[in-house]
C-alpha cells in the first residue's frame, strides 16, 4: 500500500469526471513508478513506451473502476502491454544497453557496502535489475518500484501469486548479491538456479 494511494484514488475519480488538473496529479503520482518499471523492461525506450501508455490510459480512463492502488495496477498493465508490443516490434531485448558501462564503476566493487548502497544511482540500480531474469526483474519492479501488492503484481503479470512471490524473493536476493559485488563468486548465499 503506497502512501499516496488515497490521494491518487481521489485524483483519478475527479479526472474521470473531467478534471484536468486532477489527471495531472495522477500522472505525477504514477509516472515515476511506471517509468522505472519500463526501464527495467525496455531500457532506453522507456519514455516512448510510457507516452504510448499514457495515451491509452487517458483514452480508457472512463472504463477504469477501482481505487488508487487499483489504478496503479491498471496503468501498469497498460504499460506492460505497450512494452511487450514494443519489444515485439523490435525483436530484441535492449535492456540497459547504455547502462552496462556504469556497472564497471559500481561503487560496491571498490568501497564498503554502506557507501555502495548510499551512492547507488538510478541508472545503476536499474542496470542491476536488468541483469535479473525477466520474470524476477518484472516482479521486483512491480513490487518495489510501482508499489503493487502481491495479488496486483500477479494480476499484471498474469501469473499465480506464489510464482510472483518467488520471483520477487529471488530477484531481491540476487540484487543484494550484485550490490555486494558478488557477480560470480560464491560466499555461501548464492541462489541456486535462478528462475526464468
Amino acid at each position, binding site marked *: 500500500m503506497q502512501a499516496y494511494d488515497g490521494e491518487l484514488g481521489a485524483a483519478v475519480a475527479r479526472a474521470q469526471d473531467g478534471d484536468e488538473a486532477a489527471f495531472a496529479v495522477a500522472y505525477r503520482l504514477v509516472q515515476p513508478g511506471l517509468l522505472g518499471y519500463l526501464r527495467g523492461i525496455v531500457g532506453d525506450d522507456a519514455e516512448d513506451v510510457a507516452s504510448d501508455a499514457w495515451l491509452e490510459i487517458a483514452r480508457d480512463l472512463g472504463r477504469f473502476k477501482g481505487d488508487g492502488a487499483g489504478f496503479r495496477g491498471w496503468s501498469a498493465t497498460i504499460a506492460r502491454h505497450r512494452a511487450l508490443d514494443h519489444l515485439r516490434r523490435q525483436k530484441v531485448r535492449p535492456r540497459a544497453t547504455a547502462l552496462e558501462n556504469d556497472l564497471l564503476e559500481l561503487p560496491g566493487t571498490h568501497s564498503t557496502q554502506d557507501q555502495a548502497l548510499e551512492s547507488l544511482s538510478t541508472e545503476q540500480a536499474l542496470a542491476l535489475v536488468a541483469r535479473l531474469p525477466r520474470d524476477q526483474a518484472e516482479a521486483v519492479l512491480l513490487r*518495489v*518500484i510501482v508499489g503493487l501488492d502481491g495479488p496486483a503484481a500477479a494480476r499484471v503479470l498474469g501469473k499465480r501469486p506464489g510464482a510472483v512471490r518467488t520471483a520477487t524473493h529471488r530477484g531481491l536476493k540476487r540484487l543484494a548479491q550484485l550490490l555486494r559485488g558478488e557477480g560470480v563468486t560464491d560466499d555461501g548465499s548464492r541462489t541456486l538456479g535462478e528462475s526464468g
Partner: protein
Amino acid sequence: MGEGRDSGGRGDRRRAMNDATAGGPTVASASVDTLLAAAVRGGAEADSAGEIRAVAAFRSARENGARTARTRRRDDWRPNARRRVQLSVRTTLAALLAGLTLGGVAFAAVGPAARDGNGAGAHDSGHGGRDGRTRTTDGAPARPGSSGIPDASDVSGVNPSAGDDGRPTGAQDTEAHCRAYEKYVKYEKYEKYEKYGRYGKKADGGGKAMDAAAWRRLTEAAGGTADEDVQAYCAQRLDGTGGTGGTGGTGVGDQNKAASDGPKGSGGADGSGGPGDPDTSGKPTASNEPRSSNQPSPPTSAAPQATPSSPSNASGGRSRSAGTDGPAGKN
C-alpha cells in the same frame, strides 16, 4: 525486507512485500528493496514534457466524447474481495443450475414410469419388500400438521427433480425417510460389523443408503442440509408416529450398508441430485441417471453441504447441495 533482516525498522515494508529472506549476509544499513526504490524514484526528474503530453491526451479524449465506455473485466480493479466473492458465487450458481437442469430432465423422463411401476410414489431403495412395508406405513398416518413442510418440497417450483411434483404423499414419504435416516444414524457406529450383515438380511443384494431424492426431500423439509437439521426434524416428525417399527428396518439395514459404502460414491454425484437408483435396484425407476454408483450416504457429506459453495466436497456433496440448495433457495 529482502536481505535486510538486521534492519528491524523495515518491518512494515517487509510485511507488505510478504517476503521472508532465507538468510545470508545482510546489506548493512538498508534493505535492498528500499534502496532500489529510493534510487529509482530519486532519479526521476520532473517529467514536465511527459506530463504535458499526457494531459493533452486526456483533454482530447475527453473532448472526443465521454461515451459511456464499458468497463471490461481487465478494467475492474476494485478491491479484490468483492470480485472474488462474486466470481465464486456466480460460478457456484452456474454449476448448481447446470446440475439441477440435468437432473431434472433425467428424472422427469423416468418419473411417470416409476410411479406407475411402484404404485404410490415408491422410494427407491430397490427393496421390494421394504417398499411394500414402507408404503403401508406411509399410508397410515396422514399428518396434517406437518404436511405443509413436505409439500413445500413438492411445490418448490424450481426443483428440477420433477419427481417430487408427482409424488402424491409427500408427508408420508418424508416420514419414511426420517425413519430410515434415524435408523441409519443410530447404527452408523456399527459399521465395523458390516461384514456380518447389519440385520442379517437384506432384501436384495444391493444395499443402498437413502437415495438422493429421499435425502433431498428430507433436507428440504428439515430446512437444512446438516445432520442436525434432519435429525431434529425427523425427531419431531416421528415422535408422533410412535415407533419406527420394523418397517423401516430392512430398508435401513440396506441403508446402513450403503452408508458404510458411502464414500464410494454418491449417487447424486454428477450434480443432478436426481433419485436414480442406479444399479441393483431392480425397480423400474432404474434411472437414466448417468452415474451408476451407489446412493449417497447422507451423513457423510451432509455437513460439508451446509454452505452453498462446496468446491471441496466430493461429488456427492456437491450434487446434493445442488438438489437441495438450488430449488429451495434457503440455507
